[in-house]
């Protein structure tokens, strides 16, 4: 459901940030696109909400958004959670742009922790909110050292994380924020998306931008870029699977959330991507009506 275009509030520049800041961020974005997976530092600005609430993603969105864009914001796949609603309203107010909940209609999608189930198209931009942009931070605390490791392509240490998983759990238990190699060169954290979404990053037709507000880094995956998840030869990369199907739309191939429905332990599984679920439920209903007629 597209909302009618709101009028922009008075007293702010278009999309909140001033034009000089946007130019600086755009330059960082251009560099990031030119070097897929490389973390480009940028002068992060204060946003009117705390770090950790998507300030990095918002600054990227503010820098690339135009008056004719249609914005969708999701948080854990859902359009109706606090973070998604407030960021969507923020841009509706400060940029006066049209917003939508439909993945297919959106030109810009800012996301926290999910990639939409519906395949994205060339021309769309997916903007991730990133808490910790450095994949090597787990193994190396010094930034001077991790930058050197990236520069010299010393990524053996990253395998240590997977080794620890297999040693402790018998399989690669890392289930989100699963490290990837971009374009065969840079190691990258895809932000805390479930590893279920990792295969979607590979060769995606849409442009993917990542903004980390806390650590002031921007990185990118251009369209149709190779993105490979790390693994061992004898423990290959695998995504999560569920025995259940979505209780609302019956999907057996999307990422499911487990929802506790009462104090007696009843639970249901539903799609985490609300738009995808709604779309499927609607087409199910239409099909049922057709069958009745």
């Amino acid at each position, binding site marked *: 459901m597209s909302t009618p275009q709101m009028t922009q509030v008075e007293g702010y520049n278009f999309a909140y940030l001033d034009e000089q800041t946007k130019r600086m961020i755009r330059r960082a974005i251009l560099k990031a696109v030119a070097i897929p997976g490389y973390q480009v530092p940028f002068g992060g600005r204060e946003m009117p909400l705390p770090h950790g609430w998507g300030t990095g993603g918002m600054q990227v969105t503010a820098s690339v958004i135009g008056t004719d864009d249609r914005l969708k914001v999701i948080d854990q796949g859902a359009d109706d959670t606090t973070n998604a609603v407030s960021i969507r309203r923020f841009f509706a107010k400060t940029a006066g742009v049209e917003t939508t909940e439909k993945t297919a209609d959106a030109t810009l999608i800012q996301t926290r922790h999910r990639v939409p189930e519906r395949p994205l198209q060339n021309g769309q931009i997916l903007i991730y909110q990133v808490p910790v942009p450095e994949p090597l931070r787990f*193994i190396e605390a010094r930034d001077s050292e991790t930058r*050197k490791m990236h520069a*010299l392509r*010393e990524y*053996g*240490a990253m*395998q*240590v994380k997977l*080794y*620890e998983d*297999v*040693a*402790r759990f018998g399989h690669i238990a890392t289930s989100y924020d699963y490290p990837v190699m971009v374009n065969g060169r840079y190691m990258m954290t895809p932000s805390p998306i479930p590893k279920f979404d990792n295969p979607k990053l590979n060769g995606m037709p849409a442009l993917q931008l990542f903004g980390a507000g806390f650590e002031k880094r921007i990185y990118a995956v251009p369209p149709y870029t190779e993105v490979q998840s790390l*693994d*061992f*030869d*004898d*423990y290959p990369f695998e995504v999560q699977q569920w025995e259940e199907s979505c209780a609302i739309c019956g999907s057996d191939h999307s990422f499911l959330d487990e929802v506790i429905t009462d104090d007696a332990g009843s639970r249901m599984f539903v799609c985490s991507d609300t738009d995808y679920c709604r779309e499927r439920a609607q087409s199910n209903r239409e099909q049922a009506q057709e069958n009745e007629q």
Partner: protein
Amino acid sequence: MNSICEQPAMLNSDDWQDMEPLLSVQNLSKFYAPGKGCGNVSFDLYPGEVLGIVGESGSGKSTLLNSLSARLVPDEGHVIYRSEQFGELDLYQGEESLRRQLMRSEWGIVHQHPRDGLRMNVSAGANIGERLMAVGERHYSEIRQRAIEWLQAVEIDASRIDDRPSQFSGGMQQRLQIARNLVTHPRLIFMDEPTGGLDVSVQARLLDLLRNLVAQLGLSVIIVTHDLAVARLLAHRLMVMRRGEVVETGLTDQVLDDPQHPYTQLLVSSILQN
């Protein structure tokens, strides 16, 4: 590998003359301030040789070792290393990536404090496996198998493979550090006071282990120590340092039994005799 076996395989000095040195050091200097650091050091290290660097605290031993092992850029001089993969290299003329590649493949660095050389927040197996993974090993079972073998080689129970180094005793941490370095079959090992902070019996076991490993694997070693007993046990050749300069070099027994320089005489005579 655990047997307490043969003496170090000493090569005759004639053999060494036919061989090309593994490491050639020419006029190496690194001073933090006048008199602080090390200056004008030159020597050759041959394959299979164990060189001890002794001297009091502050004499520049560690500075020299760091400069030799590509961790501290010297003010002057050259360090030339004959690499298996890259041929003859002038360390500080080449690219840093080469030096770092050497550090994790053909070299090993054993730190005085195990905490500096180990990753304390990952398991012992991962500590050993890291170097394998760094040189491209991507088969989990293989890595684990090699880690178990090396734990046993340094006399750590294989059942401790998933424990973190922080749960190990000081001696075990030091042995784990050695295993971590040896897993990629390096040719040259740099050791900085490997027995520092260990009690006498643990020290003795560690020395025994080191001596056997060095002999069996034909390693070249540069070992920094202030403990002359350690030097006598491990080193073929000694370099005595004082105030940043080398005052005496020679075969270990020669230097310790017949010291020429007054400082070396003082150093040798300061050991408690029994």
